[in-house]
């Protein structure tokens, strides 16, 4: 039981950490919030832009997590699903390692449609997939703790968890990105925009492999 609590805390920590990690990456959009405020000459445009980016990101997360929450209903196949999900996440990471090209269709999104762009960017980079093993870990522990409830009730729990995971992740992402945007906009200036930019492509792809590996490992070991 104590083990479970530790694991659950660690998993929620991972949800928050992955959010911060997505948030500080300029490629996930915070410079667009700075740009929006500067273009409209009004700092109020910044929370609006961050909100749109968050909405798109949240939808991308929930869009990936929900199908898995349905699958978790198949309690007997829990281990197989978790292993399969792990393989999928690793595969995405390997794909991003091999194919280092940026998807071209993202460049066709109108620059004012921040939510759509944020959604597509998160999807294209497998941001949602990064959450799947963590999410499945949380669901598995919850199922163990509550025993084998009726499938209906288990599914409801899992759907709620999916929304909470996506929301917590998106919130920490928005806080991290928003904080950098505010500091650059009000204090540091645009000069620091390019200085905060590091090429995380490889790190990102390796993170997917790592998280996928963790998902498989915990499926085998029970949690």
């Amino acid at each position: 039981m104590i083990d479970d609590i530790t694991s659950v805390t660690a998993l929620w920590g991972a949800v928050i950490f992955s959010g911060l990690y997505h948030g500080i990456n300029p490629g996930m959009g915070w410079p667009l919030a700075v740009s929006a405020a500067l273009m409209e000459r009004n700092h109020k445009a910044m929370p609006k832009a961050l909100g749109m980016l968050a909405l798109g990101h949240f939808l991308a997360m929930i869009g990936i997590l929900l199908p898995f929450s349905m699958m978790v209903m198949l309690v007997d196949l829990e281990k197989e699903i978790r292993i399969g999900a792990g393989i999928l996440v690793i595969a995405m990471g390997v794909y991003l390692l091999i194919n280092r090209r940026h998807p071209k269709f993202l460049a066709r999104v109108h620059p004012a449609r921040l939510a759509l762009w944020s959604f597509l960017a998160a999807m294209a980079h497998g941001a949602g997939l990064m959450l799947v093993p963590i999410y499945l870990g949380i669901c598995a522990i919850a199922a163990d703790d509550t025993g084998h409830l009726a499938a209906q009730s288990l599914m409801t729990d899992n759907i709620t968890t999916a929304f909470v995971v996506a929301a917590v992740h998106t919130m920490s992402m928005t806080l991290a990105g928003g904080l950098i945007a505010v500091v650059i906009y009000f204090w540091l200036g645009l000069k620091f925009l390019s200085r905060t930019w590091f090429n995380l492509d490889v790190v990102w792809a390796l993170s997917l492999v790592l998280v996928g590996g963790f998902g498989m490992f915990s499926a085998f070991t029970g949690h």
Partner: protein
Amino acid sequence: MNLRPDPTFHASPKLAMEAPIENYAFTVMLSPDGSQSDGIAVIDLKPGSDTYGQIVHQVIVPNKGDEFHHFGWNACSSSLSPMSGHAFLERRYLIVPGIRSSRIYVIDVKDPLKAHIHKTIEPEELFKKTGYSRPHTIHCGPEGIYVSCLGGGGADGTDGPPGIFIMDCETFEIIGQYEMDRGKQDKHYDFWWNLPQDYMVSSEWGLPPQFENGIVPEDLLSNKYGHSIHFWDLRARKNIQTMDFGENYQMALEIRPAHDPTKSYGFCGVVVDTTNLQGAIFTWWRGDDGVWQSKKTITIDPRPEDPANLPPLLQGFGAVPPLVTDIDLSLDDKYLYVACWGLGEMHQYDVSDPMNPVLAGKVELGGIAKGENHPNGKPFAYGPQMVEISRDGKRVYWTNSLYSTWDDQFYPDDEGGQMVMADVGENGGLTLNKDFYIDFPAGLRSHQIRLEGGDCSTDSFCYPSV
């Protein structure tokens, strides 16, 4: 691929102005009759260098008859928008098209003194993948590298309309045509855009038979060259408005949008008004209702001249037309430089109020029936033509050739390629620098100039100057 953004990418025009100054210039060298190979001259601009103002390296291509004209970078400051997804490109390659051969060279200038050809795209590939020919203006943008072409398909480039194609910014593979709905656009020349506001503007010179073998006087006098500019929904790839300046405004060439992306205006230079031989600049802007408008804000008068002193082409007019063939806007959107290739003058206008430009400086050099020498006493063939401004706005460079066959019609007795530089005064004003004068190797003429690290007609900025 870098681990950090290229240090020559700047979020705003203001940051680009504050950046270190240019160390090198890259200038096109072209053989007017195709008897020699064309090339890119690398010019030392490092202050205090022993070879300052000299050609320190040349990239000479293996083919002949390409006729180099305009060229541009593979990447620029536009990479700093997360939407481009290419923050880690290097500004390293010059994309150099042959306007006559339709061949495209990609030249690696990472080490300017060892610049070399990285890739060559043969004309057949361009024809096959795009249906276009005679590639011209290069800009790096959201979907890769955009290249405008002056010709369509077929031997004389009139089989189908000309247009823009997109090239991959990493592999330099040609992807295909840009346009999804070109509307009334049937000729092409220059284009540029405002990336955050998502609009593009394109202009018109004429179709290949109207320029390749020289200017066609009958076409000019019957107003058959381009006189419209087109406004596009950039990412939807759709022509949303065609603006006709009036058919007498022949050859609407260079498009210079304000660099600051909060502004929704820009300029376009018109070579000649056939009703009075004036040169003209139009200011275009987006009205509150979203409809694009324009107004002629600068006119430059022709100079009366004894027909005996004029080339045959102009004798009937008894005057020298200004021939506004290039314009360029400083990064602070303050000064517009206007090359009057016929008069032999470079004008500097204060365009702080874009609707009311004020002449702030002027330099006389070369010119039809005038041939004003450089202050160092040496000749300057033809007149001031392709102009490029340093990022900090303090130095203005220009060359002298317009286009091989047109040089020969307007200046039948001149020959040679020169590049000069003028210093800009604290409060405007323009003075030729006595010590900066480059005479290109015999038999070669010069055209567009690019500055190391970007200049005033390459970079597109995604954040405002504040």
